[in-house]
C-alpha cells in the first residue's frame, strides 16, 4: 500500500515528483478513480465542491493533472452494489484521488461498503487531500468533527498510526495555527503531524516520510 497524504492536493513540484515516483509511470498513462464522497458530509457547500473536484476546477490540484483515464468511485453507492460492479475497477486503477470534506462521513461509508477492508491490500496509490488524508488516521480529534457518526466518537480508519492536522497557517483558516495544532495533538494519545498546503506525507509499506516546500511539524 502506497499513500500520498496531502493537505491540499498536488500543490508544488516536490509533491508532484513524489506522486509520479509512487505511481511508477507517467500521469498520462495512469487510470484514476476519483472519490468525491467526503464532500457530501459538508453539504450544501460540498455539493458544489464535489463538482469542482471532479471537473478539476478546485483550488486543490488533483483531477486536472492529465490522467490517462478518469472514473468516479462513489463510496456511498457501493454498499448497495454487487462487488463485481466495483471491486475490479478499484483493483485495476493505478491511483485513487480522494477529495476532502468530512473524514468521519467518508470513514463511515468506507466501512459500510467494505472498501476500508480492501485499502491495506490495494495496488492503486492512495492520493488524498485534507479529509481524504485524515480518514486513514486513528482519530481526527474533536476540533475537526462536523458530521456525527453513529458511534459518536472521532475515530477514523486507523490504517496509519498518526493523526493529521491539515491546512496549518492557511490564510482563510485563522484558527489553523501551529499553536492550535500543538494543543490538538496533545489530546490525541497518538503521534501526529501538522502540515501546511505545500506539504504531503508519504507512506510506503509502513515507512513514513514528509515531502514539503512549506512547513510542518511532528508531534509525539
Amino acid at each position, binding site marked *: 500500500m502506497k499513500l500520498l497524504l496531502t493537505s491540499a492536493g498536488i500543490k508544488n513540484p516536490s509533491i508532484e515528483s513524489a506522486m509520479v515516483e509512487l505511481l511508477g509511470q507517467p500521469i498520462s498513462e495512469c487510470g484514476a*478513480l*476519483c472519490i*468525491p*464522497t467526503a*464532500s*457530501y*458530509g459538508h*453539504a*450544501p457547500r460540498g*455539493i*458544489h465542491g*464535489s*463538482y469542482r473536484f*471532479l*471537473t478539476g476546477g478546485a483550488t486543490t490540484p488533483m483531477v486536472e493533472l492529465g490522467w490517462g*483515464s*478518469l*472514473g*468516479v*468511485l*462513489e463510496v*456511498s*453507492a457501493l454498499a*448497495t*452494489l454487487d462487488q463485481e*460492479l*466495483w471491486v475490479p*475497477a478499484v483493483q485495476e486503477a493505478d491511483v485513487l484521488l480522494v477529495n476532502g470534506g468530512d473524514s468521519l*462521513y467518508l470513514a*463511515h*461509508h468506507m466501512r459500510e461498503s467494505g472498501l476500508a477492508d480492501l485499502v491495506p491490500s490495494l495496488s492503486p496509490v492512495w492520493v488524498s487531500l485534507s479529509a481524504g488524508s485524515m480518514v486513514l488516521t486513528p482519530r481526527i480529534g474533536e476540533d475537526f468533527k462536523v*458530521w456525527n457518526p453513529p458511534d459518536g466518537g472521532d475515530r477514523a480508519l486507523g490504517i496509519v498510526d498518526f493523526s493529521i492536522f491539515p491546512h496549518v497557517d492557511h490564510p482563510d483558516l485563522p484558527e489553523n495555527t501551529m499553536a492550535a495544532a500543538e494543543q490538538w495533538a496533545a489530546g490525541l494519545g497518538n503521534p501526529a503531524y501538522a502540515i501546511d498546503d505545500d506539504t504531503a506525507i508519504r507512506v510506503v509499506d509502513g515507512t513514513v516520510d514528509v515531502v514539503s516546500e512549506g512547513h510542518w511539524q511532528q508531534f509525539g
Partner: protein
Amino acid sequence: MKLLLTSAGIKNDSIRDALIGLLGKPISECDALCIPTALYGHPYAGPRQAWRCISGTETGTPTVELGWKSVGVLELTALPSLDEERWLPLVRETDVLLVEGGDAAYLSHWMRVSGLADLLPSLNAVWVGVSAGSMVMAPRIGDDFVNWQSPAGDATLGVVDFSIFPHLDNPDLPRNTLAQAERWAADLPGPAYAIDDETAISVVDGAVDVVSEGNWRKLQ
C-alpha cells in the same frame, strides 16, 4: 414539477427549445444539480461513464455541459446519512435536476430511500431525465430493463402513467428495435412510448407532449 424525459439528453434544437421553455429563462441563468446515481448501478455505465457524464464530456448524452449558471452533484446514495437541512434547501432552490441514465430500479430505490421521491410534487425544478433518469418516472420499467435487483421488482415511481422504452433504433443497441418495444409494451398494463435518441417527452401539469426530430411511437 415539470418533466423533460429524454432518451439521450439535449440532442437537438427542438429538445433544447422545449427545455428553455420549461425553465422559463436562459440556461445561463439557471442553477443545476446533476444526479449521477443511476450510473453506478448499471454494468454498461460504471465509473468512467459517470465521470464523463458529470464532467460534461459525454457527447452521447448532453446535459451538464449546456452552460448552466452553476452545477452541483446531488448524490442520492449520500443523502440518507445527512441531515435534511444540509441538502433540502438547495434542492428546493435549484432550477433544474439533470438526472443521468444507468439503472432505473437502482435510481428508483434511492429516490425513495433518500426521501426525494416524496418531495417531487412540491419542487419547482425541471426534471431533465436521460434514459433511466426518464424511465424512473414511469409506474413500471418492464422486466427487460431490470438489472439491479430491487425489492420493488420492476416497479418505479409512477409519477407519470406511461412507461418509456428509450434508445429506439440506436445502432449500438441492436436489440432496441420497434418490434422489441412492442413486445415489451404488450406485457405492461399501461400505455408506453418508444422514443429514439432525438426524442423527448415533456410533461407539464399532466399534459404530455412529444418533442422530436427523430422517431417515436405510442404503444398501448
